[in-house]
């Protein structure tokens, strides 16, 4: 993090973020999915690591709660690999944001990833990472910049 950004130190703590993820267990329980406290902390940590490795800054509660809400009804998720899959999806999400040069909103990218995961990738994270996301990036990067990259104020 740069010196200037280091001046701003009041990002939510990992514990605060983990608490918010645990609160979503109620929402995912009907699908037989549940995070433990350790899973929630691991998910927060993987998000921080993914942000660092992709050179991004995130604020507020971040995208993790939305990711859980979007993916929890996937028939390819099971309690055995739920936390691990969410961690891998976290990494893929930020990689995709960078690969696509922020051309898609968080919501649009998440829904696109869910459709690809449930559809052509048949629940395979390898296919999502190796085929679907690079294809999306190639398609988007030949299109013009998003309106918010250059807008009149």
């Amino acid at each position, binding site marked *: *993090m*740069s010196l*200037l*950004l280091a*001046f*701003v*130190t*009041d*990002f939510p703590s990992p514990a605060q973020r983990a608490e918010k993820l645990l609160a979503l267990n109620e929402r995912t329980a009907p699908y037989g999915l549940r995070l433990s406290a350790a899973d929630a902390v691991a998910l927060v940590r993987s998000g921080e690591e993914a*942000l660092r490795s992709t*050179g*991004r*800054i*995130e*604020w*507020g*509660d*971040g*995208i993790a709660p939305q990711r859980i809400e979007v993916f929890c009804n996937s028939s390819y998720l099971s309690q055995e690999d739920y936390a691990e899959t969410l961690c891998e999806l976290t990494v893929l999400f*930020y990689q995709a*944001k*960078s690969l696509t040069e*922020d051309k898609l*909103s*968080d*919501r*649009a990218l998440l829904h696109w990833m869910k459709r690809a995961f449930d559809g052509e990738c048949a629940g395979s994270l390898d296919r999502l990472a190796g085929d679907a996301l690079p294809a999306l990036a190639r398609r988007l990067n030949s299109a013009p910049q998003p*309106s*918010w990259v250059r*807008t*009149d*104020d």
Partner: protein
Amino acid sequence: MTERLLSAPENVDLSLIPLTEYGLRHGLLTEDDLRRLRAESLPLLRCQAERLTGGRSSSLPAETAEALLDSVFYTISLALKRCASPEEALTLLRQQPLDALFAAGQKRLTRKVQAARLMHDELTRSLFSTPNAFYRATLVDGIAGFFKLYRPALFAQETHITQIMPSSR
């Protein structure tokens, strides 16, 4: 000697970060003041990020976030630079919330941009006649290009060079 000259009140940069450092060094700001300033910076950065992305992204590349924060501090510095001395600016910094100083800075910046546009309009009406095409291209189109590129609400600190340079051919 150099240190003394740099820290003399008349030589202190009234921009936010150097002013904060000066205040801490001379006991005019406390660690509590600094904590408050830091805590108030994040909502401003978040607000600017949401403004940039239209609330459609909860993360940004670090360099974009840094540029937004740089712009926030630049704008706040414009409000502080109206003060006659570092002591006066530090009093303002202690008494006013950062978002109020940011709003005051934005107001000042808007007025400066409006004044610059008026000066440019005046300039374009008073060009002298010359066969040198670059004279007109720089003063009219080049400066107009700056106004087109400059985004004071989000990237107030940016400097755009838009002058037209003749090639050597």
